[in-house]
């Protein structure tokens, strides 16, 4: 089934906006996605019709809010094929990763062990484990995926003492898709106890994903990158792991009993959800999931891969530009980072903005990776289902003008 992108675009009010007198061309989707009207409306509806605190109320508003909020959790669980009580609402992917690091990592990793990540991790999946390494004394090992993920690179550093492999599913700089299934097989062959965390911030929004099929232990992602609101994210964890983990924060909702001497923790997933949650955030994330599934994750993925291939082909015609992660045979998602021989990304970004084209420039929260290319900043375009081939053309026209302007 093919998707009518023009009709999808109509669902996004912001895409009708103009910027600096030009129609907005939004190519910064890896930073955050735009939201369809039904997602925005569901927030308004919550606040105008049934806003109330959840879980503890006997009155109607509270019942309605609780039902909608828990129903959203159910939708997220279905999206990634996980049991409902293994879906923990967090603030964002970053918090999901920190939760695993604090509650599981600190208590389960010892100095003789090691953690493996890639050299392309987002700071949230890099600095977090650096800190665990400093605190536990365990070694932090990096797989270099600058030229794509190679199984042999993992084999070289994986051993029986690997406590955790924490890896991005799609790099937000290089765009490479890592072969999670194969990675899991390799790891489980070496040591059944090694845990696998997948940073799915850039994958869950764009492709079908089944945690059960993949056989991974933890999965982290953010709602705001998948047409949902800001301020809410998800951690999936395997039940037996979650059951044995200590709570991350303490307070209301995460306890079952409190005395002046001590406390007992609530059941999953509430044990990890202290305090009043982001109720509007949860509910509208459920609506975003419905919206995505209605288009179809396969369709979203296909369109974005097509756009990406189209854009990569065009880039190859610009001799002064270098794409970071230029192994064109590697599976990749809709993220392309690039640098120019002499024009700084920041200047490119400003001039494109004047043309209404929003791209990101900087270190993309992967500073050491970007530095490894001999630069401290790169420019990046990233796509979502509502982007068109025409927008890619507009981008390249503007890029040509940037060169004309500067050179």
């Amino acid at each position, binding site marked *: 089934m093919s998707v009518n992108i023009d009709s999808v675009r109509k669902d996004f009010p912001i895409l009708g906006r103009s910027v*600096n*007198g*030009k129609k907005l061309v939004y190519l910064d989707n890896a930073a955050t996605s735009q939201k369809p009207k039904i997602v925005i409306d569901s927030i308004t509806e919550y606040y105008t019709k049934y806003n109330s605190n959840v879980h503890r109320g006997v009155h109607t508003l509270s019942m309605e809010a609780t039902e909608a909020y828990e129903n959203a959790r159910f939708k997220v669980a279905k999206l990634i094929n996980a049991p409902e009580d293994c879906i923990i609402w967090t603030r964002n992917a970053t918090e999901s990763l920190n939760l695993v690091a604090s509650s599981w990592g600190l208590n389960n990793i010892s100095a003789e062990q090691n953690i493996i990540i890639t050299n392309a991790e987002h700071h949230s999946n890099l600095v977090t484990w650096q800190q665990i390494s400093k605190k536990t004394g365990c070694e932090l090992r990096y797989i270099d995926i600058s030229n794509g993920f190679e199984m042999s690179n993992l084999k070289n550093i994986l051993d029986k003492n690997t406590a955790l492999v924490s890896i991005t599913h799609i790099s937000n700089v290089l765009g490479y898709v890592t072969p999670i299934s194969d990675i899991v097989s390799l790891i489980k062959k070496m040591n059944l106890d090694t845990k696998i965390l997948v940073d799915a911030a850039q994958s869950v929004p764009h492709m079908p994903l089944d945690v059960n099929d993949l056989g991974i232990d933890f999965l982290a992602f953010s709602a705001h990158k998948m047409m949902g609101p800001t301020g809410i994210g998800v951690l999936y964890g395997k039940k037996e792991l979650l059951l044995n983990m200590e709570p991350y924060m303490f307070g209301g909702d995460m306890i079952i009993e409190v005395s002046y001497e001590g406390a007992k923790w609530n059941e999953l997933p509430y044990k990890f959800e202290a305090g009043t949650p982001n109720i509007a955030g949860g509910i509208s994330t459920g609506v975003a999931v419905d919206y995505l599934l209605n288009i179809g994750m396969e369709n979203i993925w296909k369109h974005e891969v097509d756009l990406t291939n189209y854009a990569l082909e065009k880039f190859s015609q610009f001799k002064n530009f270098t794409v970071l992660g230029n192994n064109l045979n590697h599976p990749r998602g809709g993220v392309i980072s690039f640098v120019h021989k002499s024009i*700084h*990304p*920041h*200047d490119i970004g*400003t*001039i494109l903005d*004047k*043309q209404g084209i929003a791209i990101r*420039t*900087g*270190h993309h929260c992967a*500073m050491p990776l*970007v530095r490894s290319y001999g*630069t*401290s*900043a790169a420019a990046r375009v990233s796509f979502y289902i509502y982007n068109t081939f025409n927008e890619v053309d507009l981008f390249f*026209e*503007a890029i040509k*003008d940037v060169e*004309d*302007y*500067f050179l």
Partner: protein
Amino acid sequence: MSMSRLSGVDDLNEMYESIILDHYRNPRNLKKLASPDLEKDVNNPFCGDELSIQLNIENDVVTDLSVSGNGCAISQSSGSLLAESVINLTKIQILELIVNVRKMMRGEDISEEIRDSLGDIEALEGVKKFPVRIKCALLGWTGLEDLIQD
């Protein structure tokens, strides 16, 4: 410089003035000092601008100075303009100059007299229409301020 199909060219041209692009392409006083009295590296990690500032100072007067770095046209040209402007000035004169540069970037009213005293630095004024870029333009000036105030 081509006018091509770009829109907002007037604003862009105001920011990327020919003096700015000239300093960007040919930065002044790049050469490192043999034995600097003071030095400091400043950077703006969010856009990746970096500048190294070195200076020699005698009786509160800056006698020599080097600014070198990596980054966007605005940060680098601003660093070069700085390098050209402060040699032989006293600390107090420099601090005053920095105050005036800031005022200009914020779009505050400045007198004709002050404007004259800025010389080529005035070319940076076009940046004020691009608020996120003001940080780039001020990077070197803020670094210099820290350096001579310490």
